[in-house]
């Protein structure tokens, strides 16, 4: 177990900056997720922690000791790759045992530990098979066992679930989470899937273009996004973002006048989550352009004086049909500065529900 710290860590490939100077601390036993779109530098960060890449700048600290010059093999880190990276010519048992080969572990002890790691991830019946004879989910479990068998200080998961089908992903999500709680190993999960990140991790680090946009709990990121990027990246269907201009307590968006709680001025971007739009009552008028039935909820495309809006309502049955005129209100709304893309503190939309 270890406390991990990054101080000004950056990675450049020639002229290309993959990771801007980054500061970050991860507590002992914590489970954090690094979330971001592909190419945002999240895997690069992970590989720097593993010792596969050397940082161009800054310091990586494990329990307060700098590890920049420590080779990957001496860092005692376990990693699960997106492709699993199992050794194709070795049996499952040999794959799991492989990391112990390079530690001073006796043959009997190695066998015992490999078998118990296999049991932990429920692949005990597959020990004689080759990786090619396994399904994706089984390979993933074996990769997890191989990462855990040496009792690592730090467990790194690089998009571990992205090659699994939807139902298996759900199972593995809770299994990995349970395993991490049981073992208490500091864990970093890299993913582009917001649901994966928010459901599994204690804290989510949202990255974009090599920079950390925001660090927080799932709730922080969803309800109090620090920037336009976080607001639009988190949430499905995505948040409504509308350009407008504010003066004092008044906000003009499209042809609509809205009231603000708090004062601000100039060009702003209004962000409203689809579920914050209440349909059927409220001061605003609009028309239904399209509806999508998603089973548990219904998704509406609206044409409104503010501009096109996405709205989400619980209930399998659509209450409004295509072409219907309706009234609606806006609940919680956030304001962003279009220049800095940061959220404007102390100035939100005054709820206009009734």
């Amino acid at each position, binding site marked *: 177990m270890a406390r991990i710290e990054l101080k000004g860590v950056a990675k450049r490939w020639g002229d290309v900056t993959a990771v801007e100077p980054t500061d970050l601390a991860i507590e002992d036993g914590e489970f954090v997720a690094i979330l971001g779109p592909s190419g945002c530098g999240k895997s690069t960060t992970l590989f720097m922690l593993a010792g596969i890449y050397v940082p161009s700048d800054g310091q990586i600290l494990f329990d307060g000791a700098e590890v920049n010059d420590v080779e990957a*093999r001496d860092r005692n880190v376990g990693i699960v790759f997106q492709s699993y990276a199992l050794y194709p010519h070795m049996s499952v048992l040999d794959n799991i045992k492989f990391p112990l080969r390079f530690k001073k572990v006796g043959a009997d002890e190695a066998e015992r530990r490999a078998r118990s790691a296999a049991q932990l991830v429920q692949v005990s019946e597959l020990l004689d098979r080759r990786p090619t004879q396994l399904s994706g989910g089984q390979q993933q479990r074996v990769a997890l066992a191989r990462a855990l068998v040496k009792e690592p200080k730090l467990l790194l998961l690089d998009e571990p679930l992205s090659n699994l089908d939807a139902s298996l992903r759900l199972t593995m999500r809770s299994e990995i989470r349970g395993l991490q709680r049981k073992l208490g190993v500091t864990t970093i999960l890299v993913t582009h899937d917001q649901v994966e990140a928010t459901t599994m991790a204690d804290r989510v680090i949202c990255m974009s273009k090599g920079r950390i946009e925001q660090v927080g709990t799932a709730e922080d990121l969803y309800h109090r996004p620090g920037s336009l990027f976080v607001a639009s990246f988190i949430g499905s269907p995505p948040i409504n973002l509308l350009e407008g201009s504010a003066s004092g307590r008044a906000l003009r968006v499209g042809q609509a006048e809205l009231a603000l709680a708090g004062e601000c001025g100039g060009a702003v971007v209004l962000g409203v989550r689809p579920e914050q739009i209440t349909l059927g009552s409220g001061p605003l008028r609009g028309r239904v352009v399209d509806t999508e039935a998603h089973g548990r909820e219904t998704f509406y495309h609206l044409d409104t004086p503010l501009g096109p809006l996405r709205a989400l309502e619980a209930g399998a049955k659509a209450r409004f049909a295509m072409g219907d005129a309706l009234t609606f209100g806006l609940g919680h709304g956030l304001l962003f500065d279009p220049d800095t893309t940061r959220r404007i503190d102390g100035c939100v939309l005054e709820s206009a529900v009734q």
Partner: protein
Amino acid sequence: MAFAIRPLSRSTADRVLFLGPAVALLAMFFLVPAIIDVAIAFTDMGRNLRVSEYTTQNVARMLGGDSRLTGIMAVTLTYVLATLAIFNVGYGLLLALLTTALPDRAGAFFRAVWILPRMSPSVVYALLWTWVVAPTEYGLLNQVLAGLGFPAVDPKSNAPMLVIVLANGFIGASFGMIIFTSAIRSIPEHLFHAARVDGAGELAIVRHVTLPAIRWQLSFVTIYQALSLMVSFEYIWLITNGGPFFDTTVYALYVYRRAFENGQYAYGAALALGLVVVGMIMAMVMWRFFDMRALLQRPRIEARR
């Protein structure tokens, strides 16, 4: 008058079109010479190219009467094994491992250097070697030795086997190098990363990741190069001419010397036949040993019957 030419069925036409040219070439350059060789092997054809009788005396001479043949076999075995193990497989592998570990440009440079001998005409290459090991003070090796204060040497007379192994090895290493390089390149990068994180050092990575991944290429290069070394003799012929005496006369060169230098065409043909048989046995043994059959996959394209 109208001819009713029945059109070939499409599948027959396809077969002729696809296989025809290859079959014709095979027949002309492989099958016919082989048949002629077999035929000549059982005659008494000599320098005058006349056949006066059909006989098995050539085969008898090869299997018992030729006292030189045992020595020739030993020379061939030494030459093939040493060149194969040290250069064609060993050094080719080493070059591939090292140049893929280097930055791309440096790696490509060193590979290019090692391909150069392969690209130069064999006579030029052989002449260069002749000059390098020339026993006079003008030989490159002797110039270097003189510069360092050592006496001149004559490797062609004193270590002829070393000379032909080196000369063939420097050319042969590039084949394995190219095949191994592309094989190593195609290993998924994550495997190396995983091994590194799992605690493996450079040598352990080579042993546990690289070598198992290029197993088939290793087997193929070993078989292919063993067979081609067995039948090739042009560099030996050009550099030492099989000498001194018969010290570097490998089997293939012996066939040539018997047939074309001594004019014993019939005996040469019989010897060549022997080489073909030995080559086939060797290929089959190695095929089994390396389990090459497991490499052959069913064709991906379904053939129409």
